[in-house]
């Protein structure tokens, strides 16, 4: 018997390691994700990601500059029109905001201050079959902290998961471990939106709640991470389970995450 163990020492060690990993995963299913060595790994990978990202952009931006010069005039005209429209919209919004502030003051509500933000550049996008994260080029030295919201003008992207002075990792809203407190914009019904890799899903929604395809889901602000009212996802599919009292609602994020290059981190 000792001879058997001696002979197959490596295979037994390997089996023990596999069992240990399996046990580790089963613990995390209940207790939540362990974050061992997350910061050192981010420090090393972030350092090299900056170098690779910088070199890649230095090479491609030269060629791209010439290619895109042709489209610049047309783009400029379009942007001028867009600017005019947005200025008009901005004036209307400012009026409404001022009116809203006056009414809130009358009602004794706390004054609303838009949170300060930092523009960040995406330097790395992870591609794993079990998670969705991105790396950005700013960190705690710019005031960024854990659980700060990451957004674009279109809607929310995710939240800061790990921070270093010059780099941060963002957990995207499509990550399976991500949850966002949302509300259906049309009828103010609330729910928790979970990431499902390519899309998101609202779970445990009562069978009788009125949700339709095309409904816009916005942040409810109840999770304490995302400010209230930001667009999150659009409902694409509603599955009613006859046997249970729930329905599953699938939604696609409003932000095309694969295409974003910059985003804003809201500082609390």
């Amino acid at each position, binding site marked *: 018997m000792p001879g058997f163990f001696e002979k197959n020492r490596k295979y037994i060690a390997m089996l023990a*390691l596999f069992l240990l*990993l399996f046990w580790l*995963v089963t613990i995390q299913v209940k207790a939540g*994700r362990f974050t061992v060595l997350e910061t050192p*790994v981010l420090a090393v990978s972030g*350092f090299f990601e900056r170098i690779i990202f910088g070199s890649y952009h230095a090479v491609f931006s030269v060629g791209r500059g010439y290619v895109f010069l042709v489209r610049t005039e047309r783009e400029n005209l379009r942007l001028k029109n867009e600017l005019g429209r947005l200025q008009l919209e901005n004036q209307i919004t400012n009026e409404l905001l001022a009116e809203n502030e006056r009414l809130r003051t009358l009602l004794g509500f706390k004054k609303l201050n838009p949170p300060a933000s930092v523009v960040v550049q995406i330097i790395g996008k*992870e591609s794993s*079959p079990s*998670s969705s994260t991105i790396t950005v080029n700013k960190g705690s030295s710019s005031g960024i902290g854990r659980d700060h919201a990451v957004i674009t003008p279109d809607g929310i992207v995710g939240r800061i998961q790990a921070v270093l002075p010059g780099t941060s990792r963002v957990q995207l809203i499509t990550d399976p471990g991500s949850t966002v407190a949302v509300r259906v914009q049309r009828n103010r019904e609330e729910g928790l939106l979970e990431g499902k890799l390519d899309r998101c899903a609202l779970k445990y929604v009562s069978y009788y709640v009125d949700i339709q395809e095309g409904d816009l889901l916005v942040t409810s602000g109840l999770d304490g991470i995302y400010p209230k009212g930001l667009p999150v996802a659009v409902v694409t599919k509603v599955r009613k389970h006859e046997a249970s009292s729930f329905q599953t609602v*699938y939604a696609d994020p409003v932000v095309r995450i694969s295409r974003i290059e910059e985003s804003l981190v809201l500082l609390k």
Partner: protein
Amino acid sequence: MRPRVYLIVFLLLIPLQASLFTPLSLGGAAPDLGLAVLYSIGLLTGPIEGAFAGVAIGLLLDMGSASMLGFSGFTRGVVGLFTGLLGRRVLDIQSPSNIIFLFVISLADSLFSALFLEITYGSVPVFGLFFGRALLRAATTAAAGYGILRFITEKRIVTWIRRRELQKEL
């Protein structure tokens, strides 16, 4: 295999995947560099070293992402073990059939991950992920893996990587 090779792999795997390979994705699916590199390691070293290398690479990926610590370690360890057995008993490192094997392994990896997430969290669109993402991912990973194998064979990098074992054999 040389410790220096492992050091290079561990240092550059996540940055290369995140900054270079994923932005060059095809239809939203990028080649899985970790799997492609692990496949090459498994073929070159054998089942035991392949499995341990797989666990190490997987744990590194877990720590560098938002997934549960140990999940990729487990799946990549199994992949390393399997490719090690494959290399020892069936496959030649230069064979084009490596494309098919790596394609199948990548598909199995994605499918296992999707099923695990479905069991753990529920409501994961397994079929949608399989046809929308896993197939493309497997195709790009197989191409990347075969490219790596061709590169290290043609540039005689295999000899450099395996110098220690070759010295032992002599």
